[in-house]
């Protein structure tokens, strides 16, 4: 399967998940909790594209992304009782399951010998991701459904702090990956991320 259309173009053409769709997802999850398989199928239809996109963003392999999506939806069904609407938005819950599975899969594939699931040279990928991080700043700024809070708060950090945080969240890069890119010790990266998160927490909490 070819992922031909660039990420940037797709972002402009497909609407983000909004509060209306979150209500719909919440209703579907509630029905799933009653054992409604048709509701689960509908939940899949409405979210699989976005969730698969998240998996691909992190694993950088189409087949692996599909596997992560499959495992995530099995986990979603088996753990459907755990979702509670007063604790988090439905899409946040779904996306988090996919994201953590993708991070885990990325680590596993990196550590396997004779790994053939990562398609590109790791250093080239990191370079590409660092340049693409700026697109996310722009995206956060113009998205009508976003209250721009995250964008504003990230802009108050030192650039390397915000870049390091976004590289970890968006692409699943480890401290070692980021350390190699900046040619700084891992402990320096840990310090950047820790300080950046501290400032971010204060800004986001206000």
């Amino acid at each position, binding site marked *: 399967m070819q*992922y031909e*259309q660039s*990420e940037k173009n*797709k*972002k402009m053409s*497909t609407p*983000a*998940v909004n509060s209306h769709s979150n209500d719909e997802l919440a209703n579907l999850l509630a029905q799933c909790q009653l054992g409604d*398989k048709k509701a689960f199928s509908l939940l899949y239809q409405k979210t*699989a*594209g*976005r969730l*698969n*996109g*998240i998996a691909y*963003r992190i694993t950088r392999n*189409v*087949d692996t*992304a*599909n*596997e992560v*999506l*499959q*495992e995530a*939806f*099995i986990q979603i*069904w*088996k753990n459907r009782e755990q979702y509670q609407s007063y*604790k*988090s*938005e439905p*899409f*946040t819950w779904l*996306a*988090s399951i996919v*994201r*953590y599975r993708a*991070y*885990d*899969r990325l*680590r*596993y594939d990196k550590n396997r*010998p004779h790994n053939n699931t990562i398609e590109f040279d790791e250093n080239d990928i990191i370079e590409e991701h660092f340049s693409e991080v700026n697109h*996310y700043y722009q995206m*956060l700024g113009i*998205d009508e*459904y*976003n209250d721009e*809070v*995250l964008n504003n708060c990230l802009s108050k950090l030192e650039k390397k702090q915000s870049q390091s*945080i*976004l590289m*970890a*969240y*968006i692409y699943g890069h*480890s401290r070692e990956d980021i350390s190699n890119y900046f040619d700084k010790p891992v402990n320096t990266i840990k310090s950047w*991320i*820790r300080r950046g998160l501290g400032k971010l*927490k204060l800004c*986001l909490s206000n």
Partner: protein
Amino acid sequence: MSEQLINMNSKAARYQNTHVIEHLASQFVLGMLSRRVHQRVVKLSKNNILLEQRINFWQQKFICIDQNTAELPPSEKTWSMIANELDFDRVTKKEREANICTKLYRWLTGFFDLATNKVTLVFSFIAAIFAILVAVNPINDNSDPLRYVAVLTEQSGQAHLVASTYGESQKLIVNIVNSPKIAVDQSLELWVISKTDGEARSFGVITKGETLMEHQLTNAQWRLIKDSQSLIVTIEEHGGSAIGEPSEKVVSRGLCVRLQEWNENV
């Protein structure tokens, strides 16, 4: 107060420290914790409201990035594999066939003296293989050949379960022939031991009360099966191992036997 109790209290107090909680929560959401620590935090968050709240806080703040990630339509077979794994369409047939396998095994073992473990072990193996080969194969609609089988036996020599795959279907069929009793707050978990690195990797929790399970394997899990040396079942806390590693309470184990040459083109 004993040293052990002091250590336990120190550990518990650490997870009430707001700085520790904030660190764990933010690193958790960024995906920067090791697999072991990640699973530990998942377990902790179920009993630590503050930790759970901080994880939810960070997840909710960053979610706009995910909401605006470009969509990628999944493969057409992904949904059918999910539905198959969750057995959405095959419940009644599965229950019927599970009864046949279990009754056949018990009928065969009833004819023999179970005085020695060796006799039980050998006969359990033969009877389990017979049950799989001759009795109903729940998914073998196309008469796929038996490719891989492992009979897991307890220390007493009695067969616990039989795991098998057929053809290239990438389905793992688990027949539970004699499940040990475990406490309400415990679960049985199935692990595959790799021939390459000797590591154990989980294939999930065995659902209580089930006698027949079908597990649609991903390509990665399929490779694990082909690389497998043996399977084990362990007793874990309810829901499975929190640290991604098997406990020392091994209930049963069995070598993996390949009955046919593999086609390596996966």
